[in-house]
C-alpha cells in the first residue's frame, strides 16, 4: 500500500549568515523544518561555539573547569584549546567589563578580543558582560579592533542596539539580537536593526533560551514558530537562531549537584554533560543553529548527533 509522502510547500527559507575573516563558516539557509531532508534543503550544519572568558570564571563547577585547567586565566590559550577540542567558533565573553568584576575599559576588552581573533582561525563570537550600557561602549571598541574579521557580536537589546548595530555595519560584523522569550519582541528588534540598514542576514536571533527543566519549552516553541514564520515568508523572523545553552545548562541544579549530594540522580559528570547535550539537541530540533556551549565533551557528542541528522532521510 503506497503512502503518499506528506510534504509541505514552503515559500521561503531562513537567511544565510556568513562568518569568519575568510567567510568560511555559513549558517542558516534551511528551506524546511529541522532535518526534514525529504522536504527541503538543509545546506549548513549548526555552528558549535565554545566559550572563552577574559577572566577566570569563579563559579564554574570543577567538572567544567577540568578540561581547561591550565588555560582558564589566559583567553588566547583557552581559545586555542577550544579549537583543538573541535569548536567551530570561539565565543569570547568579556566578563571583565562587568562593574562587579574588573570594570575593564573598552580598550582593554578590545585588545583581548584582537589577541584572541589573531590566535585562532575559526570565527569569533564576542559577547559583552550583560550590562547593556557597558556592552554598547565595549562592543563599539571591539567592533573597531576586529574590523574585517566578520565576527558575530552582541548581545544587542532594545536599549543598546543602535550603537552595536552601527559598529557592526561600519566594521563588517553580524549582530546577536536578544529579546526575552517573545516572538513579537524578537521581530520588533529585527525590524529596528534592519531599519538602520543592517542586512537581515547579518542578524542572529537570541530568544534567551532556558535550559532543560528550566523553561526549555518556551524557547522551543518560539523557535518552532519563528522557523514556520521564516518558511512562510516572514523576512523579519528568517534569521538563524543562536542559543546560549552553556550558560543555562551549567546553572541547572542537575548539572551542578555533586554525586554525594544527589545520589538518586546518578553520576554528576554524565548527568551534567547530558544536560548540556540534550538542551542543545532539543533546540536543534526546534530550529536553533548557533550553539554557545561550555564543555568540550558536549561539542563532541552534539557533533556526532548532527552528522547523523545531516544524512538524508528523503523517501
Amino acid at each position, binding site marked *: *500500500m*503506497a*503512502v503518499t*509522502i*506528506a510534504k509541505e510547500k514552503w515559500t521561503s527559507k531562513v537567511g544565510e549568515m556568513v562568518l569568519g575573516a575568510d567567510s568560511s563558516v555559513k549558517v542558516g539557509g534551511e528551506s524546511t*523544518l529541522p*532535518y*526534514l*531532508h*525529504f522536504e527541503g534543503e538543509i545546506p549548513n550544519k549548526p555552528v558549535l561555539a565554545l566559550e572563552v572568558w577574559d577572566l577566570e570564571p569563579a*563559579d564554574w563547577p570543577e567538572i567544567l573547569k577540568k578540561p581547561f585547567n591550565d588555560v582558564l586565566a589566559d583567553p588566547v590559550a583557552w581559545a586555542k584549546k577550544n579549537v583543538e577540542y573541535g569548536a567551530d567558533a570561539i565565543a569570547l565573553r568579556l566578563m571583565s567589563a*562587568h562593574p*562587579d568584576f574588573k570594570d575593564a575599559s573598552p580598550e582593554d576588552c578590545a585588545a583581548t578580543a584582537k589577541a584572541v581573533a589573531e590566535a585562532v582561525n575559526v570565527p569569533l563570537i564576542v559577547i559583552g558582560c*550583560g550590562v547593556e550600557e557597558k556592552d554598547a561602549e565595549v562592543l563599539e571598541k571591539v567592533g573597531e579592533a576586529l574590523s574585517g574579521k566578520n565576527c558575530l557580536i552582541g548581545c544587542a537589546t532594545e536599549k543598546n542596539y543602535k550603537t552595536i548595530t552601527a559598529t557592526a555595519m561600519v566594521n563588517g560584523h553580524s549582530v546577536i539580537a536578544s529579546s526575552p522569550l517573545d516572538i513579537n519582541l524578537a521581530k520588533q528588534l529585527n525590524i529596528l536593526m534592519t531599519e538602520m540598514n543592517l542586512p537581515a542576514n547579518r542578524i542572529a536571533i537570541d530568544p534567551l533560551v*532556558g535550559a*532543560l*527543566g*528550566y*523553561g*526549555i*519549552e*518556551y524557547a*522551543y*516553541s518560539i523557535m*518552532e*514558530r519563528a522557523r*514556520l514564520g521564516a518558511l512562510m515568508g516572514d523576512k523579519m523572523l528568517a534569521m538563524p537562531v543562536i542559543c546560549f545553552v552553556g550558560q543555562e545548562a551549567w*546553572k*541547572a*541544579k*542537575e548539572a*551542578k549537584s555533586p554525586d554525594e549530594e544527589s545520589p*538518586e*540522580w*546518578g*553520576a*554528576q559528570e*554524565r*548527568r551534567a*554533560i*547530558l*544536560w548540556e*547535550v*540534550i538542551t542543545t*539537541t*532539543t533546540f536543534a*530540533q*526546534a530550529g536553533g543553529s548557533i550553539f554557545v556551549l561550555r564543555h568540550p565533551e558536549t561539542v563532541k*557528542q552534539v557533533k*556526532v*548527533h548532527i552528522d*547523523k*541528522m*545531516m*544524512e*538524508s*532521510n528523503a*523517501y
Partner: protein
Amino acid sequence: MGLTGLEIFKQLPKTNCKDCGQPTCLAFAMQLASGKASLDQCPHVSDAAKEALDSASAPPVALVKIGKGEKELQLGNETVLFRHDKRFEHPTGIAIAVNDNDSEIAFKVGEINKLVFDRVGQTHNVNLVAVVNASGDAAKFAEAVKTVQDNTGFPLVLISEDAAAMGAALEVAGANAPLICGANAANLDAMVELAKKYDAPLVIKGAGLDELAALVEKAGYKKVILDSGAREVNKVLADQTQIRRQALKKFRPFGYPTITFADNPDPIQAIVDAGVYIAKYAGIVVLNTADPSDILPLITLRLNIYTDPQKPIAVESKIYEVGNPGPDDPVFVTTNFSLTYFCVQGDVEAGRFPAYILPVDTDGISVLTGWAAGKFTPEKITEMLNTSGIADKVSHRKVIIPGGVAVLSGKLQELSGWEVLVGPRESAGIPSFYKQRWGN
C-alpha cells in the same frame, strides 16, 4: 480535521432527551466536536448516523491503553504537529528493556522501579518494563516475563517476533494487557490472533511506511502501536513526522501511537536519540539503560515538551529555603509561575548565598503579567509575609521585590511595615545585587 458541532448535530436524533447527560442534542454535539464526549453516550443514534459520525469524529490518533490498574499507560488522542498549536496530550511512555537471558533480572527491575524523580512537588517516573526475548527460547522468555511481572507494578512490553514465545509469555502476563511487540509481515496473523485472544495492544512493524500501512489494514485490529522499522535517528525523525502528518490528515492506517527504540550502540547517543523521539511524536521510547543520569534528562524533557502551553505551571506558594538560611538572610519575593520561581532560585544558588524565596500565588503567571493583572499586589505580598511564617524565621524586616514592580514598594511598605528593597529587574542580577546591597 474533525466535524464541527453543527455537522454532528445534523446526524443526531434532535429529541433533546437528555439520556446522554447533556441538556440538549446540540450541547452533546458540541461536546463531541471538542472530544469531550463519545458517541456511545447517545442510546438513540441511528446506525447509519453512527457509522458516519464514528469515522469522522474519531480522534486522528486513536487512544491506546497498555496495562491495567493505576499504572495503565494511555497513548494517543494527539491532534497537533506543534505543541504551540494546542498541546501534546499523552506524554511519551518511557520503557526500560531487560533481556530474558540476563542473569540478574529481578535486580535490574528493582533499579527500574527506583527511577522516580521529584520535580516541583510532582513525581515523575518511567512507565513500562520491556522484556526482550534475546535468548530466542520460548520457555526462558516466559520465565523472564514472570520474574519481571512479579517484581514491578509497571505494565510490560513483550518483545519477540516468535509467535510461540509470545504465546508462552502471554500465558503468564496476558491478563494484564501487556504490549505485544510484535507483529511483522511474517507473523502478522498469529500475532493478531494472540492480541485478540488477550485483548491486548499490538505493535505492528513494517519495513518502511508502505508496508506498515498495508499490514495495519490487513490486521484489521484496533489496538495498534506503529513501528515503521526505522532505527537510525534521522530516519526515525522523518517517519515519525510522516506518521503524525498522515494521521492528522486522517489517513487511517497511521491513526495510532508509535513506538521507537533508542538502541544506538553509543550509550550517550542513544539518550540523545531518545530526546529527539520524545520531542518528535513518539508514543513510546524503549531504552536499554536504567542509569538515573541517563533517565533524569529524558524525563525532564518529556515533562517540558508535554507541558500545556496554555496552562502555566505553578509552584506551591510557600517559603523556599536555599542553602540553609538563618535569621539574617535575605527574603526574596517573586511569583509562583514555575519558570519565574526557577529563575530566581537558580540565580540565588548561582550567587552562593543563603536566602528565603517567597513565591506569591499569582495563579502561575509571571511578575509583570501578574502585576498587570492585579494578581501580584502589595496586599497579596503582605498577606504572604504575614501568613507564611517568614516573620518567625528572620530577625530583620526587609523584603526584596523584583525590580520590574518597583512601583509597588511604597504601598507594600505601608501595608506590611517591612522595609522594601527593590531588587534587579532580571533575576540574573541577584548575585551582584546581594553583594552590593545586602549586609553592607
